[in-house]
């Protein structure tokens, strides 16, 4: 009985150790990418197979776009919050609410335009095949961000 228990324990330990080693090794590339400061750009490099030149150009575009993106996000949030407050304050479409809704639409359009412009610029630095795949992903995310937010790049193939 002791021998049997020892062998069962040994088998269990062997299984745990091999599980741990395999898990860490298989997940290492993803963990390495996720731990970098520009993890999202590293994801882009890996997902769309960018070489060093392509990556450097896209990285520059990304960093140039980031402040504008941040500014636009603040504007969107501010306008939507104002519209939300107005809707709470009055259960009618007041001229102020009407104006706020127009601003929301205007900002949405501006945001789409800006994001699409950036996406086209990024895709231009990729190989045609990868650029096409990137644009399919970004088009979906830019045009309907709330609907397709669950769509993974890996699902958009060829």
């Amino acid at each position, binding site marked *: *009985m002791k*021998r*049997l228990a020892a*062998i*069962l324990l*040994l*088998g*269990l*330990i*062997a*299984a*745990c*150790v*091999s*599980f*741990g080693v*395999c*898990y*860490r*090794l*298989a*997940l290492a*590339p*993803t*963990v390495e*990418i*996720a731990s970098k400061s520009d*993890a*999202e*750009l*590293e*994801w*882009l490099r890996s*997902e769309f197979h960018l070489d060093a030149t392509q990556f450097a150009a896209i990285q520059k575009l*990304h960093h140039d*776009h*980031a402040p504008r*993106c*941040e500014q*636009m*996000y603040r504007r*969107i*949030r501010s306008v*939507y919050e104002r519209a939300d407050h107005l809707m709470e304050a009055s259960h009618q479409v007041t001229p102020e609410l009407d104006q706020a809704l127009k601003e929301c639409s205007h900002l*949405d359009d501006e*945001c*789409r335009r800006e*994001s699409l412009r*950036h*996406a086209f610029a990024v895709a231009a630095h990729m190989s045609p095949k990868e650029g096409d795949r990137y644009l399919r*992903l*970004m088009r979906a*995310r*830019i045009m309907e*961000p*709330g609907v397709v*937010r669950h769509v*993974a*790049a*890996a699902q958009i193939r060829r």
Partner: protein
Amino acid sequence: MSESRSLEPEKKSEGFRQGAVLTVTMNARGPDDPADPEHAGELSRKLQEWRVEPVIPADFQREVWHRIAARQAEPFWRPLTAWLEGMAARPAAAMAFVLTGVAAGLMVGREKAQVAAVESWRVLEERYAHSVNPASRHVDYVNHLNHSVE
């Protein structure tokens, strides 16, 4: 020179008691010496007369039922543990068990790592989308508010 050997069957085997005892006296000059053609006939005659009559003990039936009852009273896992103990005594089987554990660990580890990698990849993709599309980030913010209201 004389040699005496007692051929006694097992005293008890599966409930049967065999009561026959044969004593053969091996004597190079004796009447049972098989090499002696004069006495070969006598040996053959003795062998032909020899009869083994198995004696069934009086408590045979009771013992059989006792064993059946004992077997039925055993827990259902007893045969399994007995088999495992038997296997554990064999080094090859023990090694096979450990290797099976290693293989199972590798397979499950790989599977779990793939699931975790897919999820991490999805999060990174989400982060990228947020970094280039403010509307996507705003939608997440609104979803967050909706969840907090719920």
